[in-house]
């Protein structure tokens, strides 16, 4: 009996080691740095329909930029649809559990893409699992309310900290809708401390504004690019109350194993920003963005 239990233990250990080895081999086989992408001849763009970054109808600022990047590399472009819950595992091959600024690595997952580009906000926990490119777009998180809400927009003071404080004060006792695992994750902004009743939205990021209009919550948070799109789509239906975050930036995400691909993307971004093609795309999809973030865009105009 003793001999049998030892054999089982050894067998279990062997299997674990074998699986780990196979897993490592598998991950290595899918690690997509520049040489792999060029050898494959295809750049796989992980995207989620969101604002005008990825419209869901085949275009968008990030779709155009990534298509141009594929052309720059001399490979074909391939769009790989994903969602906010799986976008990181689809890139890195590991599932994650986010706790505020911390992230816990979980089991493995199949790698589906070579880069993330869809208004992907640079957040501390994301920086721990992916490498971000140079900033591709500026952002900020705004509190949005239904037009008939009794909450009235703040009077800007010129001091962002005071404006955030005034906005958070207006959230007290109000139902505020947010979306986990995105830049609108409530844990990032500590809404409970503001006294807000957080409602975790189960739909897609693009559906937050219509959900507020449909009375699913009185308020929600949106980042600036998405808020600008929502204002244009539903004029008179929603109103912007004020900011809940300081300025943020978005960037393209790459695995930690793809330094060359990241470096090439940064070179490509510099080129488009210098030759004017970047600003052409920005003005096409976010014509009013330059008014809110003049500091970010001035050097590219």
């Amino acid at each position, binding site marked *: 009996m003793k001999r049998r239990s030892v054999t089982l233990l050894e067998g279990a250990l062997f299997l674990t080691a074998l699986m780990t080895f196979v897993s490592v081999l598998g991950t290595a086989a899918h690690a997509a740095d520049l040489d792999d992408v060029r050898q494959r001849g295809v750049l796989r763009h992980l995207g989620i329909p969101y604002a005008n970054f990825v419209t869901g109808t085949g275009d968008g600022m990030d779709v155009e930029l990534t298509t141009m990047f594929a052309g720059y590399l001399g490979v074909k472009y391939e769009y790989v649809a994903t969602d906010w819950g799986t976008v990181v595992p689809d890139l890195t091959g590991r599932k994650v559990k986010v706790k505020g600024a911390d992230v816990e690595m979980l089991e493995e997952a199949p790698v589906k893409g070579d880069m993330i580009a869809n208004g992907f906000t640079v957040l501390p926990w994301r920086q721990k699992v992916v490498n971000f490119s140079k900033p591709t777009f500026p952002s900020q998180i*705004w509190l949005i309310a239904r*037009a008939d809400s009794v909450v*009235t*927009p*703040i*009077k*800007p003071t010129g001091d962002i900290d005071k*404006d955030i404080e005034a906005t958070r004060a207006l959230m007290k006792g109000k139902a505020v809708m947010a979306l986990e695992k995105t830049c609108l994750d409530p844990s990032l902004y500590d809404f409970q401390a503001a006294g807000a009743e957080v409602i975790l939205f189960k739909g897609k990021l693009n559906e937050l504004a219509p959900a507020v209009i449909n009375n699913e919550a009185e308020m929600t948070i949106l980042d600036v690019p998405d*808020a*600008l799109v929502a*204002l*244009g789509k539903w*004029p*008179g239906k929603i*109103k*912007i*109350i*004020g*900011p809940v975050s300081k300025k943020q930036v978005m960037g393209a995400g790459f695995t930690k194993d793809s330094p060359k691909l990241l470096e090439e993307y940064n070179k490509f971004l510099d080129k488009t920003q210098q030759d004017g093609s970047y600003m052409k795309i920005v003005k096409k999809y976010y*014509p*009013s963005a330059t*008014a*809110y973030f003049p500091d970010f865009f001035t050097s590219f105009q």
Partner: protein
Amino acid sequence: MGVFRSFSIIRGIAAILFSLALVVYLGFLLYSQYRYQSELQQYALSHMLADVENRSTAAGYFFAERADDMTRLAERRELLVYFENLALGMSMEYGLSASLMEAESAFKTFIETRKLADRRIYSRLVFLDSSGEALIDVSENASTRTNNGGSVPSPLMLDGESRETWKKLVTKEPGRAGFLAEGKGRQGVIILSLPYLFKGVYSGQILAMIHPGLVYDHFLAESDSIVSKGPAFALVYNERYLFTPDSLLCDRLPSPSSLAKGKAYEFSMNGDDGSSVLINAYLTPISGTPFSLTAFISANDEKQPSSPKTMILVTGWIGIVILGGTFIIIRTSMKNAVLKATQDQIMHMNVELEQRVMERTADIEASNQKVEEAYADLKAAQSQMLQQEKMASIGQLAAGVAHEINNPIGFMLSNLGTLGKYAQRLLEFGRRQSELIEALVKGASADPQTVIEEMKTLRKTMKIDRISDDILSLIDESKEGGERVKKIVLNLKSFARLDEAEYQETDINEGIDSTINIVWNELKYKADLKKEYGDLPKLKCYSSQLNQVFMNILVNATQAIDKHGEITVHTWHDAGCVYIAISDTGCGMPPEVARRIFEPFYTTKEVGKGTGLGMSISYDIIKKHNGRIRMDSEVGKGTTFTIELPIPA
């Protein structure tokens, strides 16, 4: 005669009648022409007035469309969204400015898309809020958002004191756009003004500006000069001329208030040629606007555009022009013929010139050939001279060396001859001794004592003892001679440095010594040599070339001494250079000779004795070593050559 006379009378009457008929016919023709011209002009005038009416109607439609444009602009969704968001309390910092930018973008698009014959209709669009602040202000060339009331380009300022100007444009009552105008001519502007109401409340004013030149160019532009080319038009606003063509100066024109619709106003003005011209002005209002159209038509154009006098004048002028033209053509042809002849002459001269140039070129080429040949001859001669100098040096060298070698070789040969005789005698002595010993052994000679005595006698007779002593002395002497030859050869090698690379570190004193040894034969009979050598550092140089310099100077020094003198070789150095001074107590040189001593081919020696290249070559060698050579000479006292060679850092 009577028949002839009556025939003449009849002929005269007939001529008179024919003349009268001709005059009548001409008068009829002129009258018909006058009537025809009058009717034609009347028709032309009515046609022109109809044209003025049509233009006025077209301009009226144009302004009506612009009023519709204002209504459409006020209905733009972007403006509505802005006011919706404003009403919701949104701030510019958070959301509202995006709405305003959208509205501004819509205004820009509006300016860019509204065109008339490829020209933009609106030069500027402005949206004033209810307090009079400009929220949107976009112009044809650039857009400027001035929501803080900042300044915008002329012609209409929207800030400061000028704000009073636009306040009169504000009409808060809903309805169609109203028209106003400011300024005049190219600086003028037509303004459409429409109140904007949001949810029934006055919320602002839309102002659109049109350049009156656009209206003029499209609907009115006809001619630059009414006096000579037909009608001209002016745009009138509030009893003043808003836009007139450049040829019509307003102070000459009648005041628009004195004009009435459908009634001609006659006035005169100076024509293009300075003469007074009668002008008729016709006023036609543009319906639906405060603007009117005034047509100016020359009275001459209306009544007698082509009178007989004018026709004669015109025909005369045409005749003169044709004659003038013919004259010019003939004159031009003649000039051309002269020019052609001149051209032929120039071409002929050119051919001759080319021929001459070719001949001269051939001459020059031949001369060049001769110069080249002469140069080649000169080069050959120079080469020959250099060779001659070389051979002279070699000869000098060979003479010295031959003399030095000749002495030891002489006594060595003499000694060898003596040694040969001694050897024969010794051999003979040996042979005789052998015979005596052999006779003794065979018993032919019984007394050994006798044999010994004979051998002693023989030794004495043949002077064997003296020969034995002399042989050693001769061998020692010959060895000494051989040593002397060996030393001369070594000196010769040292002088020529045949066994060393060309440019290398050299002991200058050693080089001077070897040179002295070479020329010693020539020197020793003429001068006492005094060496004052300093302790010199080794120098990198072409030692054989420097030795050649030393030899030239030493030989010259020797030759400068008539009977017996002194030659001093002094060497020393400082931090930068090594110095070699060779002085003689010879005859010295006068200044005219001293000046030319380094010139090539300059010599004071007899023809064939010197090439004149020795000191020139020496000068070049020292230059090649970046050094300097100086000569100080005084007639009757002697000459000193001082060589200065730099010590490399």
